[in-house]
């Protein structure tokens, strides 16, 4: 029996091509507070503008993963035409690099691409691992963070 690959030539050709990762967005104080509360981390740098300024920040600081606010994790699904039914999607891993602080008032621009496609056999069937890379640039053109998530498609 020949095992058919989950990865088509068309899918391979999508590696490295830009993804629809969402448009530019302004980092708002309320968004920062929501994330701080969701991780139960009430750091005054995130919540208290006067305190943040007293420590040399331009406004309240954002928690490290704030750039993923409104992230279109499903963006790879728009460009990959799977030759198999997807029965479940799992979030496999996260990898972050942080280059510069992000503050309220900053405008971030995400830009993603697919980095790698790998298939594996798992206990729930064949799995396709999709690793993408999203870079976040601020209004001054500075790269502030790079995020490399891996999503796992379970094939039916």
């Amino acid at each position, binding site marked *: 029996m020949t095992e058919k690959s989950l990865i088509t030539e068309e899918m391979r050709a999508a590696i490295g091509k830009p993804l629809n990762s969402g448009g530019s967005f302004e980092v708002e104080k309320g968004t920062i507070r929501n994330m701080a509360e969701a991780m139960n981390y009430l750091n005054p740098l995130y919540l208290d503008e006067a305190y943040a300024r007293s420590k040399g920040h331009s406004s309240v600081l954002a928690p490290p993963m704030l750039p993923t606010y409104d992230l279109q994790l499903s963006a790879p699904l728009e460009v990959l035409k799977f030759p198999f039914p997807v029965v479940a999607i799992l979030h496999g891993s996260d*990898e972050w690099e942080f280059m510069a602080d992000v503050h309220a008032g900053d405008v971030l621009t995400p830009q993603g691409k697919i980095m790698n496609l790998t298939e594996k056999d798992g206990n729930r069937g064949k799995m396709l691992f999709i690793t993408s890379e999203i870079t976040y640039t601020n209004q001054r053109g500075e790269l502030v963070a790079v995020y490399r998530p891996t999503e796992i498609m379970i094939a039916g």
Partner: protein
Amino acid sequence: MNAPVYFEDVTIGQDIPHQVKEIITTRSVVKWAAAVKDFYEIHYDKDFARLMGMPDVIVHGPNKCALLSRLVLEWIGELGKLHKLSCTHKASNFPGETLTCRGKVKDKYSREGKNYVECELWVENQEGKIAAPGLATVSLPSKN
């Protein structure tokens, strides 16, 4: 705020002298969903989660990654910097579980005027089952 941690205070092989412990509730999962606008139904619709073979709604992987960032940032304080953080999601977690984030110092070195510390981190549940092993690189101030 804790006393600042200096590069000289850190020893390779030591445990990170700090932990983050969180009891997971449906509310805490939904708060994360709202904070990052991730409305995949597996995180708030129990019927949908069961169709996907889960016993209940599941904690977002990035939420666990964020808890690991909190562990590191609470430990190093405002003088330290977080440069890299990664984690792999090995197991799903559900409301009712208690997650604890812990870590160990793997390596320390100075390069280009900065004092780096590499740490092994993980999220474990109340049974000690590791749900998300990870790595972090931070830099710390020096006493010199």
